[in-house]
């Protein structure tokens, strides 16, 4: 945080085989991109339990990214399709909680797509910057007595 200006906090779940390697490529190639994303490496985008996404939002994330192999390229055959189906359903459910669909993003990034990873991070950061902070508190601080 600089001078109290809003800096989006993003959490990214990246699959080991494609997207994490793609992010690694962006790093080793010294591509400059927004530093707002905190990356968590998972074996497959299909491993991302919707509970992880909710936990990220409830503990301060302003946006969550899931990134996996392109359709047809999943190391485990169909994990990314599971991620796709969960993403679409979870996005609808998050809207019922008042979490805008722009805050939850699914992207396919291959091991060769360092540039795409750079673009996704930059775009996502700017998009959330415009949307503003989520400040999730879940009604925790309402009751009067201690």
């Amino acid at each position, binding site marked *: 945080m600089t001078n109290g200006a809003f800096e989006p906090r993003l959490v990214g779940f990246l699959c080991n085989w494609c997207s994490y390697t793609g992010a690694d490529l962006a790093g080793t190639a010294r591509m400059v991109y927004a530093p707002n994303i905190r990356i968590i490496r998972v074996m497959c985008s299909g491993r991302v339990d919707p509970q992880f996404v*909710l936990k990220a939002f409830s503990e301060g994330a302003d946006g969550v990214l899931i990134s996996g192999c392109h359709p047809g390229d999943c190391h485990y055959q169909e994990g990314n399709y599971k991620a*796709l189906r969960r993403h679409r359903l979870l996005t*609808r459910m998050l809207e019922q909680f*008042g979490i805008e669909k722009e805050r939850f993003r699914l992207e396919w990034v291959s091991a060769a797509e360092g540039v795409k990873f750079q673009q996704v991070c930059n775009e996502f950061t700017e998009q959330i910057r415009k949307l503003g902070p989520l400040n999730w508190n879940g009604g925790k601080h*309402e*009751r009067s007595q201690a």
Partner: protein
Amino acid sequence: MSAAKPKVAFYWCSSCGGCEESIVDLAEDILKVVAAVDIVFWPVALDFKKKDVEAMEDGSIAVSFINGAVRLSEQEEMVKMLRKKSGLIVAHGACSHLGGIPGLGNFWNKETIFNRSYLTTPSTDNPDRTVPLEKVEVEGKELTLPRFYDTVYALDQVIDVDYYLPGCAPPRDLIMNAIQAILDGKLPPKGAVLSPNKSLCDDCGRNESKPEKLVIKEIKRPWEVEMDPEKCFLAQGIICMGPATRTGCGERCIEANMPCRGCFGPTDQVFDQGAKFLSALASILDTDDEKEIEKIVDTIIDPAGTFYRFSLPSSILRRRRMEAIK
């Protein structure tokens, strides 16, 4: 009444009364309970007052069974008092365990709920637009009502809870087992949900009818189809919370040919029942095509209300974002 009998209290918060009924439904077994314990507080059935509880020594009640979610300041005050006066607190039923049906109020707030209940329902006749106030002066005297919170809470979000009796309402065998375990001093570790730690599907009589690869092409609502009384509901395209719900209920709904709604909450391994069910349901949708996925997903009318029917307040997100309520 002998002094040696353990003292027991029953209290209700935000609930429908069904959990009180579950005690009465113990039928002849209630006599065994009454023979073994002294009931010292039970507002729905016996004439004890708040001041009677206040006068008791701290820790003097062996166990308090509290049903209902916490939605009012009065409920918060009462459960905090019972916590002080009781050795054990048992959250009795889905509402105190998870937030329950009243917990669905967490998709709204006080203002929108009052607006709907007191002003805009078709049957409302309220020309003066009167809504309940916390304080009002009548003939020089101040009358007060408890504060109505924007958010509904599960019991363990307000006080420390020792055990949970799940269900809407809890079945009688689980209640009797719990009472017996307390009387015998044979209790599981603190924090336990007093029902087997397996999913409903494990015990479901329809489990065998489940195809090897369970997939859904089209989601149907119970009223849209004639339901096969023997086939797995999910295999029929009907949303059944069984995979994400704890067993022990005796499959009462399944036997009445209705899918599981999830009142027993999740197993110990799961934090968030709704998210876990969403995960299971999404993974069995039978298409990899983006447009088709979206089409199927759109046919689930109210995903959050369906997956969190009984557990919204105890879920990870707990409620709808206040800023998003209009």
